[in-house]
């Protein structure tokens, strides 16, 4: 276990370094991306731009800038170019909406994904299965922002049932929080529900044809018990890992589009706005955060996997 964690940690550091370097380099080569020009302000003279460049160290070699920036990222003092505020404070402030979005949507898509997947599998080939399959595939085929825009239009503008976006902290107003999050949750979950339903359906069907399920039936167990204790117990294991990874991706800004549509001011939107402003430090930090979340949750998922499936040993 400790060996596993150590190896994982080493791999993670390597991946994170590569990602940070890549992000940094991408922004270095952007034409017209020189932050000094933007920071020097409107109608700034070349001399002023040069001043900014010197003051912020943009004239130094790339590796030097990278190391300095990474140093600041690590000790938490990195500030954004455009607003010159501490990036990590800003991300901490943007986390509640993003976590609200990810957790709520995660619960919704897990619940409905599992429900639809199991229903679909146990009625395989029948009308219910076919209808659920169609629903799932339509869900998978619908871009979240399209769905979000439609929800916003019909429930927000036309019916005026739900707020038109924005975020209300849970601690301040639980009901407001709920009404503001409802549409983003739905818009984000639908595609995931589709995917999970499909994956689980095929997992369950595969598991049902396993010999040990036949054994369970031969033991005289009730169909329900066979389904829950033998089929689901086994076919849900991969879902756990899938969920962990998807959740990590959403927390880290994978829901950029949804956050933008519903104006949630979460991490993803912060990242998107920072990219639009070509503001490297926030982009760098968010990217690292996401990568971190993905890698850490990946390790957690592996540990969980090993706990759920005794055949798995923690290796690489």
């Amino acid at each position, binding site marked *: 276990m400790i*060996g596993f964690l150590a190896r994982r940690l080493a791999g993670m550091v390597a991946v994170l370094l590569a990602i940070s370097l890549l992000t940094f380099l991408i922004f270095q080569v952007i034409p017209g991306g020189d932050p000094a020009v933007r920071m020097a302000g409107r109608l700034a003279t070349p001399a002023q731009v040069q001043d900014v460049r010197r003051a912020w160290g943009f004239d130094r070699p790339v590796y030097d800038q990278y190391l300095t920036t990474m140093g600041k990222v690590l000790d938490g003092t990195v500030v954004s170019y455009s607003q010159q505020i501490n990036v990590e404070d800003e991300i901490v402030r943007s986390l509640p909406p993003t976590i609200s979005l990810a957790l709520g949507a995660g619960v919704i898509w897990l619940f409905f994904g599992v429900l639809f997947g199991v229903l679909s599998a146990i009625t395989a080939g029948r009308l219910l299965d076919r209808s659920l399959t169609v629903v799932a595939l339509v869900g998978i085929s619908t871009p979240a922002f399209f769905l979000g825009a439609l929800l916003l239009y019909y429930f927000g503008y036309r019916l005026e049932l739900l707020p038109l976006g924005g975020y209300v902290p849970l601690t301040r107003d639980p009901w407001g929080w709920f009404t503001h999050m409802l549409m983003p949750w739905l818009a984000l979950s639908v595609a995931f529900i589709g995917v999970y339903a499909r994956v689980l359906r095929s997992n369950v069907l595969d598991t049902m044809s*396993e*010999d*040990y399920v*036949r*054994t*369970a*039936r*031969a*033991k*005289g*167990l*009730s*169909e329900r*018990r066979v389904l829950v*204790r*033998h089929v689901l*117990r*086994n076919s849900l*294991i991969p879902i756990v890992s899938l969920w962990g990874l998807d959740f990590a991706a959403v927390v880290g800004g994978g829901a950029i589009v949804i956050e933008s549509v519903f104006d949630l001011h979460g991490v993803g939107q912060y990242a998107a706005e920072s990219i639009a402003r070509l503001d490297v430090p926030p982009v760098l930090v968010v990217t690292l955060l996401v990568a971190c979340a993905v890698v850490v949750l990946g390790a957690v998922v592996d540990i969980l996997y090993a706990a*759920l*499936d*005794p*055949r798995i040993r923690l290796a690489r």
Partner: protein
Amino acid sequence: MSLLEVANLGVSFATEAGAVRAVDGASFALSRGEVLALVGESGSGKSTIGLTLMGLTRRLGARTSGAATLEGQDLLGAGERELRSLRGNRMAMVFQDPISSLNPVQRVGWQISEQIRAHQPLVGGAQALERAVELMDRAGIANARSRVRAYPHELSGGMRQRVMIAMALSCEPGLLIADEPTTALDVTTQAQILAQLRELRERTEMGILFITHDLGVVADIADRILVMRAGQLVEQGNAEEILHAPQHPYTQSLLAAYAPRPLRAPRTTGAPLLQTQELSVAFRAGRRAQVQALDGVSLTLQEGETLGVVGESGAGKSTLIRCLVRLTDPTSGTIHFRGQDITKARGRQLASVRRELQMVFQDSHASLNPRRRVEWILAGGLRLREVPRAQWRGRAGELLERVGLRVEHLDRFPHELSGGERQRVGIARALSCDPRALVLDEPVSSLDATVRAQVLDLLARLQAEAGLSYLLVSHDLMVVRGVSDRVAVMRNGEVVEVGATEELFSSPQHEYTRTLLASCLKLPGQVRSAV
């Protein structure tokens, strides 16, 4: 009244290719305390009968006809709830493959106690687990108390099958259906399991429907025998009668396939062709642990002879073979082929050695590329010999004819061939390189008895025609006995005994050789075999 009565049972399945009749009008009866063996080759429908009696083919879309009763209770027409109260309770089943038949993520004790609690709702969890310990103990599992907490993958194959048996017996059923319960096991383990079943029958008055393809096992345990072929019962009667005086031609041919092959006349052997000296292979297992798969093996295959290598699984036979054909690198020791050290051969040298030293694989299904037609598979060796492309088809056809197939098989895919045909293609592929020696890795172990005999005949014929040398590896003493000039016995990576076939079988020197022989030749005069 018999325990189990089956009358005119028919089972058919709807498949993509239309309805398939798996069982056609089977009638038989089984009394308490009796072992009824249901014998047939693969595809004969014997397993379908077992599954149908348990009601397990219903979900597969089976349509049944006829009648089957257990202690007077209708099995085919029973409702699902009714059937459930019978299953595991008054009739139980033991399956062929204990690793896939046990739930991999639940502890074995839990799996046994689950069945007890399903039928005896008043039994508490702790009590059921206590019963599981008892059952496992009685099924011959040492340390049962600690093993209840084991997961299936932590147990050996024999242990797992004992768990399955313990589970099947947990509610003291009247009928036990055992579907090839020993097929996946080593000979020594198989003998133990069979002994266990015999002891059980005596103790509990249980009726056992024993489904197997292996006449050797049947002789060991059956009171009566049913012979099945293509879904139909062709013959039934007392074990003695069937085994000694079979009436139906099919039964006769089946028994003939089991007849001991005459020992070969020892041949004058030629120069050493393939030699290993002190060959050792160690695999890393985990951080520091090492597994010594091969430990100082020195063997010599002489020109024109057949050297048989026997041993149980884990004895190091496969590793030896992989070393010989240079798929695995030895940790130490040397391999010489025609006097040439090939231990570290690479590139051109290796290629020329490989052309002369070919291999036939155990699993004919896995060793043929499923996406390629037979012609393509055979052309590979021709291409290496730089045969012009225009001649490939003709030469491949000739190869097929040499191994007893026809030219039209060239356009088939491996899945369109039977197991025997596939193994012939595998042999033809080896021959396509025009080799001096063949390494045969369990070449007949996945084949039915009748087919097995044919393939062994083919190998003998080819050897005679082309003067090939064989190194034949098998876990089956009978296979080795009939075709080898000399035999080597392996155990735990070491060769424990080498000798001329007749000598080794008549006066084994090593104790392990004796154990092996004993566990497979219990009934004098009766030949047994196992897959």
